[in-house]
């Protein structure tokens, strides 16, 4: 006869093992299913949740950027806003046209008030030193041949106008211009005279010294001219004077 008691024990052990195996397989399956569910759904939801603040941030950024254009949205608007901010294009166009108008008006006003602005400018102005040299225009009238032709054509008128002007203003520059015109015309005596006048009014004008010395030189008084130039050079240390001194010296040699 078979010993069923022992066999039953073994059978219970076998069944327990089987149940444990089934339970472990079911647990593993449920874990796999839950894992799959978590990956497929939960993770997506979490990503969505994480993106919400980004959306709010983007809305905030848009608000900040367009604070002058976009009006403040209500709390309900923020909550209902989707991840991508939607902007009303019609409103935007209207706002853009208004902004353009404002800029145009502002530019016009700016142009109008520019001189006024100039006067009202409070920054300190640096006072320009009075130039001892002739202006390029003045020089061109003296050095340029074409201008010389103009002088010749209108020479008498120019001299009389300049002399009248000098008599009125007593400006050493006018005297110097007259001296230069006479020098160019070959009237060295008048040139010497008017350069001296200019020099008397302003002894620091290099040109007056130059015209005076050159006129003296033309009139054959080179030694005297050199003496005057050297004396002035020792005082002024002007390179133009130095150059003329050297030129005269070389010519004399």
């Amino acid at each position, binding site marked *: *006869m*078979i010993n*069923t008691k022992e*066999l*039953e024990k*073994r*059978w219970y*052990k*076998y*069944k327990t*093992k089987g149940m444990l195996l089934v339970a472990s397989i079911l647990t593993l399956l449920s874990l796999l299913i839950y894992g799959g569910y978590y990956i497929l759904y939960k993770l997506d939801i979490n990503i969505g949740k994480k993106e919400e603040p980004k959306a709010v941030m983007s809305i905030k950024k848009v608000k900040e950027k367009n604070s002058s254009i976009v009006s403040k949205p209500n709390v309900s608007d923020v909550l209902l806003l989707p991840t991508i901010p939607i902007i009303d294009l019609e409103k935007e166009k209207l706002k853009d046209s208004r902004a353009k108008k404002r800029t145009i008006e502002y530019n016009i006003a700016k142009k109008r008030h520019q001189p006024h602005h100039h006067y009202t400018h409070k920054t300190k102005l640096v006072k320009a030193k009075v130039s001892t040299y002739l202006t390029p225009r003045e020089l061109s009238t003296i050095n340029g041949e074409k201008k010389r032709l103009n002088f010749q054509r209108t020479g008498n008128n120019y001299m009389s106008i300049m002399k009248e002007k000098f008599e009125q203003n007593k400006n050493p520059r006018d005297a110097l211009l007259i001296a230069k015109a006479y020098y160019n015309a070959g009237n060295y005596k008048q040139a010497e005279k008017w350069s001296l006048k200019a020099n008397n009014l302003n002894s620091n004008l290099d040109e007056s010294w130059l015209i005076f010395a050159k006129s003296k030189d033309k009139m054959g008084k080179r030694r005297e001219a050199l003496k005057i130039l050297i004396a002035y050079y020792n005082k002024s240390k002007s390179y133009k004077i130095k150059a003329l001194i050297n030129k005269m010296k070389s010519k004399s040699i």
Partner: protein
Amino acid sequence: MKRSKYSDIKNIFIDTVDKDSFVELESTAFNYQILEESLDKPLKMILLFGRPGTGKSMILNRLYHNLKASREIHYFEAPILSEKEFLRNIYESISSQRIPKNMRVNFDGLLKYCQNLRGQREVMFLLDECQLYSEALMEKIRLLSDTRVVKFVITLHKTENEDIIAKEHFKTRIWEVIELKNADIQDLEIYIQKKLFQKGFVEVSNMITKRDIKFIHACTKGNFRESNKLLYTIFNIYEYYDLYQPKKIEKKTTLSKKILEMAAIKIGYIHD
């Protein structure tokens, strides 16, 4: 002393080579027919092989009982390993003479004796479990079959490691090879049912469901001997419960899965 109906049922499945317990299945009937036809052919040797428990001995036994009246047929149920004894048995079977114990059969003399009988007689020998015979003895069997007076039907176990058909002395001389295989689920179901029907246990046969057959087949791989062993153990447990704990098997119209599994644990098909 109390006696259970399961005591008789379990005895049906005791592994015996008995012509009455032979169950004719489609596959076994086909193999038997081939074997019978082969005996009429001028073959020297016929090989019947298969795994242990596939019904080789049962077929040989049936063949012997079916043909012993019509043919000169001798069945060596158990292998005779001694060459001296084997030759003595062959000679005694052919000559129907008893040899004194102090004498032995000379093989050359036996060969000459068989050659003298050529054309007069055809004696058939059914040898079971031939894998146990020595090669020298197998060679002598071959030489005897060459006389065309003696015909051998031999059975061999088919093993995993050894391809017996490839053996030289079988390869050249065996003309008919019949392989027996394990039963499939359908054959196993018919086999169990027929076994129970033969002994009049129709009610018990109806208790066995297809699920039970599948379980038995999964355990035994359809091997008849193994199936008999399992079924014997199942009904042995039933017998115990019927005698000592009848409540455990009362009002059950099908076989208890628990008892099936217990039997499988007992034999070692499933491990606890």
